C-alpha cells in the first residue's frame, strides 16, 4: 500500500503583512489560495500553464508565478500581492507611473507586470532599459507591445516618492 495524504494541511502565510492561518488541500495552488480563500482577486490567472506571469506575486521578496507554487509551499513565508503595493489608499509610485505612461491597455497582465517591476526596482533602483526588458521578460502582455510598460518602469525608477 502506498501512503496517501488526503487530509487538509494547516498553513500559516503572511500576506501583505497580515498573518493568515488556513487549512488547505495539499494540491491547492498558491494562486487559488490567494484568490479564492483570501478573496484577493488582483492576482490574475492568465494562462494557467506557467507561461504568462499574470499571477506574479513576491514570495520572500522574489517574484514567482503563483500558479506554479503549491499553497503548502508558502507555509511560513511572506507573500506580497498587488493589493499590498498601495499604502493607505495612495497608489505605489510604480502604479502611478503605469497610470501616467499608459503602461496598460486591457489591464489583465498589469498586476503581474507591477509585481515584476517592483521586484526589479527593489533590487536595482536605476536599471538600464536592457535590465528592465530582462526584468519583465517573463511577463506576457498581448496589447501594448511593451514600449509603454518599459517607459512606465523608467518613470517609476525616477520617482522620488519611494
Amino acid at each position, binding site marked *: 500500500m502506498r501512503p496517501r495524504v488526503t487530509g487538509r494541511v494547516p498553513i500559516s502565510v503572511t500576506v501583505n503583512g497580515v498573518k493568515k492561518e488556513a487549512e488547505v488541500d495539499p494540491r491547492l495552488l498558491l494562486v487559488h489560495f490567494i484568490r479564492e480563500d483570501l478573496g484577493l482577486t488582483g492576482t490574475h490567472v492568465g494562462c494557467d500553464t506557467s507561461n504568462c506571469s499574470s499571477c506574479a506575486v513576491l514570495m520572500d521578496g522574489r517574484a514567482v508565478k503563483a500558479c*506554479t507554487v503549491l499553497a503548502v509551499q508558502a507555509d511560513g513565508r511572506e507573500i506580497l500581492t498587488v493589493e499590498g503595493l498601495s499604502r493607505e489608499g495612495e497608489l505605489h509610485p510604480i502604479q502611478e507611473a503605469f497610470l501616467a505612461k499608459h503602461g496598460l491597455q486591457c489591464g489583465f497582465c498589469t498586476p503581474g507586470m507591477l509585481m515584476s517591476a517592483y521586484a526589479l526596482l527593489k533590487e536595482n533602483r536605476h536599471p538600464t532599459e536592457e535590465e528592465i526588458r530582462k526584468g519583465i521578460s517573463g511577463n506576457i502582455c498581448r496589447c501594448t507591445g511593451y514600449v509603454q510598460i518599459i517607459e512606465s518602469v523608467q518613470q517609476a525608477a525616477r520617482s522620488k516618492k519611494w
Partner: protein
Amino acid sequence: MIAGGQSLIPLLKLRLASPSLLVDINRIPGLNRIEESEDFLRIGALTRMTEIEKSALIKEHYPSIHDASEVIGDPLVRNLGTVGGNIAHGDPNNDMPSVMLALGGELVAVGPAGERAIKARDFFLDTITVALNHDEILTEVRVPRWRPGSGGCYLKLEQKVADFATAGAAVQVRLAKGGTCEEIGIGLTAVGPTAIKARKAEDWMRGKLASDSAAVQELGRLAAEESDPSMDLRGSPVYKKRVVALLVSRAFGRACERAGGAT
C-alpha cells in the same frame, strides 16, 4: 519529489504526471551552497538559478554555468527553479545537462546505501530517465575546479524567452601556451533524446590550434553530425543541425577568448 517545481507543477497541471505522493525537499538545510573545494566547484542541488546567476565566482571562473543560468526559463522561473531539478529531470530540452557534459561534471546522489558520484556522461540515460535509483536524490552538482587557461561558453537559440531551445551548445576548453586546444568538452541541448556529448568533435579539436578557423568550422560540422534532432515547431532536423554547427563554432570561439587565448 518536488524542489523548484517549475517543471513538475506544469506537468501536474497538464495531468502528464499524477503521483499519489509528493515529497517537498525544499526545507532540507545545507543543499543550497555554492563553494569551491580543493578539486571541485560544488553547487548544492537546491540552489536556485537566480543564485547561480548572481554568483561572482561562477561568472568569473565557470562562465558556461553563468551563461545557462541567464537563459533558463524566465526570471520568475529562475527564482524558484533549482540546478538539481534542471539536471535530475532528465529533459533533453533543459540547459544544465549539456553544460555538465561539457565541463566533465559529476552528480552526487544520496540514498540508503550512502553517497555516490555519477559522471555526467553516465547520468543521462534516456528522455526523462537518469541514473538515479528510485531511493536516491541528487544532492550536489560538481565540476572540476577552474584551472588557468580554461574557459567556457553556453549558447542557446530560442524563439522567445522561456521557450525551450531550438538548439543549445556548451563548450569548455583549456588552452596551452601557444594556443593549442589541450582539453575540450562539448554538450548539446535539445537535439536528441538526451543531452549529447559530442565526442567525435572533441577528439577532432584536441591538439589543434584554437585559431585554426578551418578546424573550428569542421568542429561545428562534426558536432552537428553527432546530434539527432527531431522535427517540431522549432524547425526541421536539417535546420537544427546547421544551428548546432554554428553554435558550437561560436561557443568555442567565445570559450577560447575567455580562456585568454587568441582566436
